[in-house]
């Protein structure tokens, strides 16, 4: 159908997974990769900022004072698990198994919700109980904005996946819904990659120095 408008000439797409079979799907997925590459720079900028400001605590609490490894490990493992379940959902997508797809995606967003809950709790503890809100010092500004941006991305991802679940429920696995589900998966894995760096550059580093 879309092939008439935007034709991807001379490329045989019939052998590809469903999400690539329309030209639109192919274009969107490629564009989404480019978007993710741009996000890489966006997060890179935030990391650079955080690392520069890390020691600018202005007499307020330092990373060592605040961070606790327990909750951080919990968040990390939950996010890693969700990346795994998200991977499983993509496999179900490739098997054209709507039930499996919806099931694993639901598990993924549930894990995501738990993650957001833990993170919100961590933020709340710092800002309210420890007297360390973002306006306390440059270090805390960097911390809250880097992690907040990641958290906002995860939250947006949850909303997005819920939207896709609704569409999947209504329309089943079509080239369009398959594409959307696949892209949401990419996004989710990407956020996991970002978290790996947060875990390393923020938490572990903060505990070491």
């Amino acid at each position, binding site marked *: 159908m879309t092939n008439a408008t935007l034709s991807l000439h001379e490329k045989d797409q019939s052998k590809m997974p469903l999400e690539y079979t329309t030209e639109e799907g192919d274009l969107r997925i490629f564009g989404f990769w480019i978007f993710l*590459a741009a996000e890489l720079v966006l997060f890179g900028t935030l990391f650079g*900022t955080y690392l520069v400001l890390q020691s600018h605590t202005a007499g307020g609490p330092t990373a060592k004072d605040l961070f606790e490894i327990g909750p951080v490990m919990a968040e990390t493992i939950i996010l890693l698990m969700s990346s795994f379940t998200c991977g499983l959902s993509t496999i179900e997508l490739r098997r054209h198994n709507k039930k499996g797809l919806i099931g694993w995606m639901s598990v993924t967003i549930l894990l995501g919700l738990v993650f957001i809950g833990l993170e919100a709790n961590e933020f709340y503890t710092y800002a309210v109980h420890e007297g360390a809100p973002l306006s306390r010092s440059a270090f805390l500004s960097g911390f809250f904005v880097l992690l907040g941006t990641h958290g906002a991305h995860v939250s947006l991802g949850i909303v997005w996946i819920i939207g896709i679940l609704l569409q999947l429920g209504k329309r089943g696995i079509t080239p369009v819904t398959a594409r959307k589900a696949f892209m949401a998966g990419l996004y989710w894995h990407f956020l996991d990659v970002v978290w790996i760096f947060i875990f*390393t*550059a923020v938490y572990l580093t903060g505990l070491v120095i």
Partner: protein
Amino acid sequence: MDENQKQMSERMGAGFPWKQVIGLLLSLALTFLALWIAVGLSLPVPVTLTIIVGLAIFQAFIQLFLFMHVTEGTEPVHQLIGILFGIYVAFAIVGGTLWILAYAL
């Protein structure tokens, strides 16, 4: 086309999700390894930092290749170049910023 064949078989797909399971196990292992190196050992700070950052990069590549299907698509080379360029620029800004506003991490 080789890759596409693989994708086909995955799509028809029976079989155990090996890629995913291996990815998960590796990720978990690397995470705990990094934690142990950072908190458990008391190596000199620069050594620790080098190792844990190295582990993080390794883990990122695991996600990229095992979970994210970066080698799929009609012309995967385009998205690979895109991601590489992104890595180049991200590295420039993180490394450059740290170098310019130099830091004893």
